[in-house]
């Protein structure tokens, strides 16, 4: 049984078909990548998984429970966390507060206990602080923990956003272009974090990424989208040699395709 089952979803905005009958199975414990040219519908799939969009047909199942139709915060409670293509951190809050917010669903104290603070709320704050500090250590962001996120550099913000998603202790982590706009060194760091999260923390990862080198290196399985349709799926090696994929990325070239078929 796959951890996440995207079952034949269709999503259109007015006349534009963003996703057209896409099915993807994400196996537990894997790193699964979704690639495709701009506007292929990758982020729309993420938005369908976290229930920001509701597909007109088909549904998403997580651990055999139907996610489609739930509210976004309920989906999170099932164990799905995500990061965003254009960083969506809480800019006026500190790194620490951003990560502590990720612990929201594990904390139970309401306004009364919170307002009195001494006692249960304080204990809860400290317990969750410890969990958050583990993530801060893992991501090597100790120095900036008290800084407001709005003052940080882009690469660090990406890292903080990953940390916030990890604070949710997810079973499935959705990463939307975690390496966009990063230099080589930052990309290597991020790739290392992703592999560690997958192998050591046992988190299943579904990622969207444009850097094909990284995708081919770290992922176990790759799905390729083009114009809202899944055109290929398989191991990185299989996908890289699929003529449909090459056509989608490089464009149509009869000679080239004939060469491919002759091989």
């Amino acid at each position, binding site marked *: 049984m796959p951890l996440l089952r995207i079952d034949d979803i269709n999503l259109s905005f007015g006349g534009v078909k963003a996703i057209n009958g896409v099915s993807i199975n994400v196996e537990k414990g894997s790193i699964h990548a979704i690639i495709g040219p701009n506007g292929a519908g990758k982020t729309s799939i993420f938005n369908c998984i976290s229930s920001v969009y509701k597909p007109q047909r088909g549904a998403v199942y997580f651990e055999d429970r139907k996610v489609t139709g739930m509210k976004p915060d309920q989906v999170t409670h099932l164990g799905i966390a995500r990061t965003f293509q254009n960083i969506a951190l*809480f800019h006026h809050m500190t790194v620490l507060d951003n990560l502590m917010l990720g612990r929201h669903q594990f904390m139970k104290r309401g306004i009364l206990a919170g307002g009195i603070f001494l006692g249960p709320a304080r204990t809860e704050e400290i317990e969750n602080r410890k969990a958050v500090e583990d993530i801060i250590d893992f991501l090597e962001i100790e120095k900036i923990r008290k800084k407001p996120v709005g003052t940080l550099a882009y690469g660090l913000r990406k890292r903080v956003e990953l940390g916030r998603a990890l604070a949710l202790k997810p079973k499935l982590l959705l990463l939307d272009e975690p390496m966009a706009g990063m230099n080589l060194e930052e990309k290597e760091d991020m790739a290392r974090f992703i592999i560690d999260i997958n192998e050591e923390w046992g988190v299943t990862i579904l990622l969207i990424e444009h850097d094909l080198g990284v995708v081919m290196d770290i992922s176990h399985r790759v799905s390729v989208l083009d114009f809202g349709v899944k055109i290929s799926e398989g191991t990185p090696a299989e996908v890289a040699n699929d003529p449909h994929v090459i056509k989608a990325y490089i464009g149509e070239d009869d000679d080239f395709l004939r060469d491919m078929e002759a091989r």
Partner: protein
Amino acid sequence: MHFCGDFRTTYEKDIEILQTPTVRLGVAACLAFLVVFPYLVKGEYLWVGLQILIAVIGAVGLNILTGYTGMISLGQGAFFGVGAYTTAYMTTKLGLSFWVGVPAAGLVTAAAGMVFGIPSLRLKGLYLAIATLASQFILEWVFLRWEPVTGGSFGIVVPRPSIGGYVFESDRSFYYLVLAITVVMVLFAVNIVRTRTGRAFMAIRDHYISAEIMGINLFRYRILSFGISSFYAGVAGALLGHSLKFVTSEQFNIELSVAYLAMIIIGGLGSILGAIYGAIFMILLPKVLTVLTTKLTMLIPGAAGLAIAMEQGVFGLIIIFFLIFEPDGLAHRWKMIKAYWKLYPFSY
């Protein structure tokens, strides 16, 4: 001052509100000043102090809604009224005591605020501000027309509270009562904003879509924020009613709502300290101007008419200057001053 820095080795230490000896000393000095204040001044000045304390409660409440949750409300004045009328009705018509009336005022106002906060689920920013403006006008209309409860345009005469035969009749004794309530409510607000609920509010303010995907129920927390903010307004309104000994609908007009919005903007959005500074500033400034005008009139009798006419203009001008040069509020300026002196003379 910390010449080598300020080191905290446990999480318990790290989440204390007053983290350094200097800050602890400062707060203790402020509280001591507030305690001896009624013996330093009398008459009108004590009355100003009382008004500031009440305004602090209201401003802190509004800042939780507007500064922390990011929802502009133009109805705070009317919510003051709900609190004032609730306690007035309960103490005079139902014969209950002040000690029941004030908490009840808070709860009734919180309920009213939650109802009028429902549009916030759909509306944001300026559109929400207009929706809350509607609550202001609806409530004002109710204050005037629901005569059996509110006394209509005549208003209600409210008694001062008493406990075990002792009546808080003098302004001085009532001041101490209000001071105690204000300190407790400010502390409560400080704790709310640094724990789970407060973080959820700030997350909604900064990026509500992302907040929802992080597992925050937007409906619940938006309404909760309205509830807490209105609770503060209700208690402040009730105390205002008991201090004036009279409740009438004109006190709770749109002007009051705008004044509170001005307080938190001048003081600093999203800061409890800012709300306190804003309340002090907005209540104190007109009084200071009045005193100055009187002094000026005595000095140059010919300028009397002009000086009095200028008073309101100068008030507006000072506020505009503050917004231009201090857009992040007094709380931010205070932070900068502290940061400068913390490492003096090696600041960089």
